[in-house]
């Protein structure tokens, strides 16, 4: 129940932030504002193939179903790669799924907000992806099932220049791929 409330709350916050972001993007004309925002909404636009596994269902934009496997984005505080407690159940669910389906694999894509040095942010994005990877490895996922990559600040899902956007960009996306 607690998890459900937290998740819905997050979805609501994200939706609000995205609405604000899309508005600004439209006016300011930053590249990718609208499209990026769509992709960022709970990872709905990510394709995840699910090669042979029926365990993962596609999802829409809504937050009605709160299967933790449908949460594919972990968010971070500024200049931090520490995983907040509320995201641990989500990572645990993906880890359990990967253990149960050894033929599936994920790419953990680390990202940062636009503030500060591009090169430092590239390293910070990598550290975020590595932090999620370590948590999955501890739970028994085979190293070969996990790939990490950092895009630093080069791949924002939201392109306005405020905290509402920045917090959506400080993230690790869990991207399933066929193996």
């Amino acid at each position: 129940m607690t998890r459900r409330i937290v998740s819905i709350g997050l979805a609501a916050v994200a939706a609000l932030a995205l609405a604000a972001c899309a508005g600004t993007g439209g006016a300011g004309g930053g590249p990718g504002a609208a499209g990026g925002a769509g992709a960022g909404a709970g990872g709905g636009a990510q394709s995840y193939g699910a090669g042979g596994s029926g365990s993962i269902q596609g999802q829409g934009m809504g937050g009605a179903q709160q299967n933790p496997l449908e949460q594919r984005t972990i968010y971070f505080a500024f200049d931090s790669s520490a995983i907040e407690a509320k995201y641990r159940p989500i990572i645990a669910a993906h880890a359990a799924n990967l253990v149960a389906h050894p033929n599936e694999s994920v790419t953990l894509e680390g990202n940062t907000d636009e503030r500060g040095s591009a090169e430092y942010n590239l390293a910070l994005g990598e550290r975020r992806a590595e932090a999620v990877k370590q948590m999955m490895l501890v739970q028994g996922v085979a190293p070969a099932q996990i790939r990490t990559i950092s895009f630093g600040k080069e791949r924002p899902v939201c392109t306005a220049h405020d905290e509402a956007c920045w917090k959506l960009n400080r993230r690790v996306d869990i991207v399933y791929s066929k193996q």
Partner: protein
Amino acid sequence: MGILRRYVVALLLLCAVSPVWAGLTIQITRGVAGAVPIAVVPFSWSGPTPAPPQDIGAIVAADLARSGRFAPLADKDLVAHPTAPDQVKLQNWRVLGVNDLVIGSVRVLPSGRYQVEVYLYDVYQPPAQAQLLGQRFVVAPAQLRRTAHRISDMIFKQLTGLPGAFDTRIAYVTMSGTGKVHRYALKVADSDGYDPRTVLESPEPIMSPAWSPHGRRLAYVSFEHGRPEVYIQDLATGARKLVASFSGLNSAPAWSPNGKELALTLSRRGNPEIYTLNLETGKFHRVTHNPAIDTSAVWTPDGRNLVFTSDRGGGPQIYEVPAAGGPVTRLTFDGSYNAAPAVSPDGQRIAMVHGQGGGYRIAVLDLKSGLFQVLTDGPLDDSPSFAPNGQMILYSAQYQGRRVLATVTVDGRAGQRLSSQQGDVQSPAWGPYRK
């Protein structure tokens, strides 16, 4: 028929020339208080077209203004328009309060080449000693802009005693596109943003271009294989080589002053560390050993040390380490965020991205005096890079929702913005002197 042919040729010329104007446009963003007034008279022109292909006088005036040290008079304030030594009346210019006068001419020779003459006067000297420079160039049409920048360099050197850095090039990355479709391009242009040439295009991010010491090659990071890898590309031939492609990060390349080594960041052992790569042997040498982030290494001019960003103290700060490995020294203590160091050509200053009160600005630390000075206004400045004469810093900034390039003088007095008509411009790197 003759008219038609001329028309077609003119059209073709327009086509050939137009990419030049698709470059970066300059706006002065910070005043010229304390700049020395100088008169640059429009150069005379003798040739078959109504106007010369390049306005040499205007290019020189813009260069001098960009340096922050000179304030060229507006055309309307010029009291006379001499273009040759016998037309100069020094007292005319003293009345205007200018110290120096630049005049010159451009003519087409029968060979089709252009002859450019330039003269520089100190108007307060007696006539016999007033002429400080007199120079004639004979160049191909394509060399006219470069000739103008060389003239600016000569004038700057004559009047300040410092070498000019106008006849240099810059590298940068442009980004355009929307949604999930992006186009990235690595470009090289003149220091004033003109004549951009595309070096690499990719649908995936390109980052961190770094010039080789002689300006013949660029090292950079490309995500074209879906992850960051380091390439070296020859600018004359376009030939390129993948030099670092380990698992994890391959990023932040920087050439050693002798051009034989590359410093870079690798996370092949799971954590971002500084390495050097010997470009002759292909051997990597690990420099840092710390569980924190270590990245953005640049060389000191003597080639002995690397200055880099690390968050080993909590937040990112600037550190120094011998390039061969050894004890690490912390250099910055002002504020909680200092990253992306650039070392001045004389090794006396370090420019960096300085986070303060939610904004990110370019700051400079003077290593001798310890003076720490914030030069820019932010809010999202990044990637500082020194001009080869150490007098200006090129960086990327946020302006009206887009990434643009900007320059600021090392004393923070004068600044300009170089923006593209559309899309974003980032990751600038100022190239070395041209031979």
